[in-house]
């Protein structure tokens, strides 16, 4: 299986390098992401999970990995379709020089590759390495635009996450040593660690958990390691922002979840969940307060990503993994919708300043609709996919700690307030704006598709999905 995948990937890379036209590169990228999206579907339908790639068990796709790959594939697929028009727009505006397009698509596909490999890593240090690679590749993607601020943003991204990730590596070293001392077999393979977790010294396990947490928290923008996220997500081209926000951020939570599964059942499980909870609440609080500053549309969306990540941490701490996993998928869809729409707004007004977005319904009705539906969805309105996870996670949290549930609810209210402000602004701001900017149809398709998906998933919760989610929870051993 590994050979099939690798050959597809090599073919993709070669095709990109050799391709001579923008469209060609785009088609290859779309193909690649379709392939990635279908791959886990194939595995899930066939029921061959976990799929072992190599006998070292460094790369194993289990249900959780397949689920995350599926989300990644879908997000990359939409972004690839969107990129066709968006890249053309960027070139037309002179924000992206033609010479950089190849680098852009190369980075795009490498990022997808790194993501897939990260989610297929059973060995935690391999996961760490691929997570690092996603940082580097994302930084390259951010700086392909012709703007100096992007370099600064990328710099922040690289330095803040990489320094924190080094602490994660220390955590891995300690975990490795702990597994050697505890069970005799030194390994960083996650499945083996999970089996042996009761034999590992709990204090040591907790110690390494804390360090691993630091790095991956930085990767997913948890306060106080989040400071890179707003600049880099808001400065990147909008299709890249989609990738970063909808998909790359998931790696951090994914890794934290895996390692948390190791420590949760030990005698230090309570401390671990308390720590995660504290970080989660602080994150949600700071992010929702920051969202109130109504200056930059993409920054608002970026802070809302921070808030959502914090919420996922809270869900993990509250022990409601089932709904956290559903929330991950819902968040990816909503974030993609928001950033896609913001991209069109950016093209229309040439800026992301909220004060300049006037008469958007007349100029870009689809983008306005996307932003409004995205905003309504992300604040957890009923009949949208974020509602059920929010309710159940808050319920679990109220069981664990009443006080934090109240605090969380108030913060969520503040966050919702800023999105409603955004909706009001979009609906009400009229003004003599320029002519409508011509938007390529390929930029509209993903927005329409995502709106449809959100509506469908809001009204209908597919039963197989519930089975898959439950399977992942039992895989992590965090059920009940």
């Amino acid at each position: 299986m590994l050979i099939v995948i690798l050959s597809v990937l090599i073919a993709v890379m070669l095709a990109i390098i050799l391709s001579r036209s923008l469209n060609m590169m785009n088609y290859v990228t779309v193909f690649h992401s379709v392939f990635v999206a279908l791959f886990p579907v194939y595995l899930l339908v066939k029921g061959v999970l976990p799929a072992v790639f190599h006998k070292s068990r460094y790369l194993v796709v289990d249900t959780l990995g397949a689920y995350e790959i599926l989300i990644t594939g879908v997000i990359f697929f939409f972004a690839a379709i969107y990129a066709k028009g968006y890249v053309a727009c960027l070139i037309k505006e002179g924000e992206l020089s033609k010479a950089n397009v190849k680098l852009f698509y190369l980075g795009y596909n490498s990022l997808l590759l790194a993501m897939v490999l990260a989610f297929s890593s059973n060995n935690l240090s391999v996961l760490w390495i691929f997570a690092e690679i996603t940082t580097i590749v994302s930084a390259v993607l951010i700086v392909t635009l012709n703007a100096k601020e992007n370099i600064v943003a990328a710099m922040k991204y690289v330095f803040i996450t990489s320094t924190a990730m080094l602490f994660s590596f220390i955590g891995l070293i300690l975990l490795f040593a702990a597994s050697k001392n505890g069970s005799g077999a030194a390994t960083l393979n996650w499945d083996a660690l999970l089996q042996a977790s009761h034999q590992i010294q709990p204090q040591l396990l907790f110690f390494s958990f804390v360090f691993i947490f630091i790095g991956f928290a930085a990767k997913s923008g948890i306060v106080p390691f989040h400071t890179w996220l707003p600049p880099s997500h808001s400065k990147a081209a909008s299709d890249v922002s989609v990738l970063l926000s909808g998909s790359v951020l998931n790696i951090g939570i994914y890794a934290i979840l895996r390692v948390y599964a190791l420590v949760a059942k030990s005698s230090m499980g309570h401390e671990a969940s308390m720590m995660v909870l504290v970080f989660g609440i602080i994150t949600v609080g700071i992010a929702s307060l920051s969202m109130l500053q109504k200056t930059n549309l993409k920054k608002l969306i970026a802070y809302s990503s921070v808030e959502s990540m914090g919420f996922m941490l809270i869900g993990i701490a509250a022990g409601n993994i089932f709904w956290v996993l559903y929330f991950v998928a819902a968040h990816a869809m909503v974030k993609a919708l928001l950033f896609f729409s913001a991209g069109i707004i950016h093209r229309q007004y040439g800026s992301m300043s909220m004060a300049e977005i006037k008469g958007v319904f007349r100029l870009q009705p689809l983008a306005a609709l996307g932003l409004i539906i995205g905003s309504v969805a992300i604040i957890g309105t009923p009949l949208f996919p974020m509602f059920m996870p929010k309710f159940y996670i808050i319920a679990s949290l109220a069981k664990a700690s009443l006080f934090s549930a109240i605090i969380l609810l108030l913060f969520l209210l503040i966050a919702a307030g800023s999105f409603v402000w955004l909706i009001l602004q979009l609906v009400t701001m009229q003004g003599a704006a320029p002519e409508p900017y011509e938007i390529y149809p390929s930029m509209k398709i993903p927005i329409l598709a995502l709106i449809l998906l959100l509506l469908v998933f809001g009204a209908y919760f597919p039963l197989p999905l519930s089975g898959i989610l439950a399977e992942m929870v039992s895989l992590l051993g965090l059920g009940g």
Partner: protein
Amino acid sequence: MMPTLFFQSGVGLLLIASFLALVFLHVKQSRIRKCFLALIILACVLFLASSLSVLLGGDALAFYLMLSGLRVSLSIDVLAAFFIGIIGLVGLSVAIYSLSYVEHVGSERKKNFMLSMMAVFILSMVLVVASHHLLGFLVFWELMSISSLFLVLIDFEKEETRKAGIFYFVMTQLSTVFLIFAFALIYNHAGTLEIITIRGLPPFIASLVFVSLALGFGIKAGAIPFHKWLPYAHPASPSPISALMSGVMIKVAIYGIVRFILLLPDKKLWWGILILILGTSSALLGVIYALKEHDLKRLLAYHSIENIGIILIGIGLYMLFSWYSQPAIALLALFAALFHTLNHALFKSLLFLSAGSVVHATHTKNIEKMGGLMKTMPYTAALFLIGAISISALPPLNGFVSELMLFQVFFSSGVIASPMMTLVLFFALSLFALTSALAAACFVKAFGIVFLALPRSKEAEMAKESGPAMILGQAILAVLCIGLGVFSFQIFQQVGQKAGISFDLPNLLLISATAVFIGAVIFIAVRGISNRNVRISETWGCGIASQNSRMEYTASGFSDPILTIFSSIYRTKKINRRSFHDHDSAVFKEGHAEVLLLRFFEEYLYLPVVRLIRFLSSFLYKVQNKVELDPYLLSSFVAILALLLYLGVAIR
């Protein structure tokens, strides 16, 4: 199964109506809007039918619907049927009223959008009441909040509407937050999401659930001190919407309170006292604030607060008396509260609708600029008068009956063994009585200034009577107001037989029949005796040659004595700025003086919170918006050091 079918087809019709209205957002023909409204009217009639069939002795309906993988059970028992009946009634008349009103709303899109949201709004309210599943309740509750938010924002071009919208949203979401919290607690401890089976809550948790439910529903109902959104949102939205919101939506919150209070186990004494305090303060402050209001719709909004207070007093009394195990009196209080709920829904919707007609005819909400509308809009005036009599609790209309029932409950507080509690109740009684009196005064002012005397502005002079649909919509409500008052004795005889208690009400039918008879006799007698010559002459105006409207008694003048009495409640702020030409402040250059009413709750409760949040947010923005990299690295460094210290302490 006919009632169930009625209900379901009502839901379906509303869904279709809202969907079609969205699809045909741009359609210009008013005929198609009539069709949408016909659908809504039909749906309301169906709801009414199903509710009546339950109320008149049918069994509770129970069915379910699937909602994103969730089996939401719906059930219509007597309580739910009562509220669905209210929604159906008010919805029906509002929809009829809108048949012509909607054409005045603005652009085509706005009209169609308003109808679509109205359908969703009515639908969501009905489903909230019918829902017997906590999550379903939340879903529909949110749907109700959001559709009503859109309705408030119909006139979004105005700055004040936008402000009202954001204020309304924040308050309504705050209420949802408390509800989510309470429901999460119930779910955790009772282990179920079904509303009917809340059991096994530990005492502390039960109290917590009660408090957060009281807060959540209290905010939505507009109880003081969470009332601030009402006087903002009602004037901002179109009148039929105000009628729906004030007449029905805040009643849905009352439904929530009643429903959960009936269900919650081991009730405490202080729960009842809390509700009583909320009720009394809302009633009294609501009416006092209403007195100084010159914006017609805002005045009505403050009266909604007052009446919610009265309803809450009833609920509080119910809880108190049932704690003291006086079930008969408690039940009387509950019936009084529920009956007042119905009555308030009727007369407040009526008042809002007639206010809408008036505002539409005069293009102003300021009552100081109205006057003399009795002549130009006679029907509207008569309908408003019926509403005003009803809200002032004058016999023989329905408002009188429900308040009378409450007074009866108060008077029987002697049965309570604790003298302290009796004293408290008598204190509440005195405040309640004051409220009733002030409400009457306020409506003398409202009716007098708006409809009597001479018009005070061009617009008022030019006002025209509104169309037949608008009159019909109000007339339904007015007839019900009269009917429920006059036939109250007969109705409550029936109800008393069913509930097994007896109501000690005067037979208003007899009284009013007698009154009408006597009145007719006097009228005929006077007409027979007097000569028929009509003499038209001017009233003596102290010798001033011509009288004009500026000589009339104004609203400010009318309410001034009362304002003086309550001046300690209306806190005023005096601003006096002067500037001078010279340094010694001798030669006066210009000056500015104003007397501001201090908005107490805004200044001391809402704004400090807002300021704190704003301060925090701008501080965070400054901190997080630096160009350099180093501060951020420093922050992660410090965080890591802190984690290290924590590890050093935690692992020993």
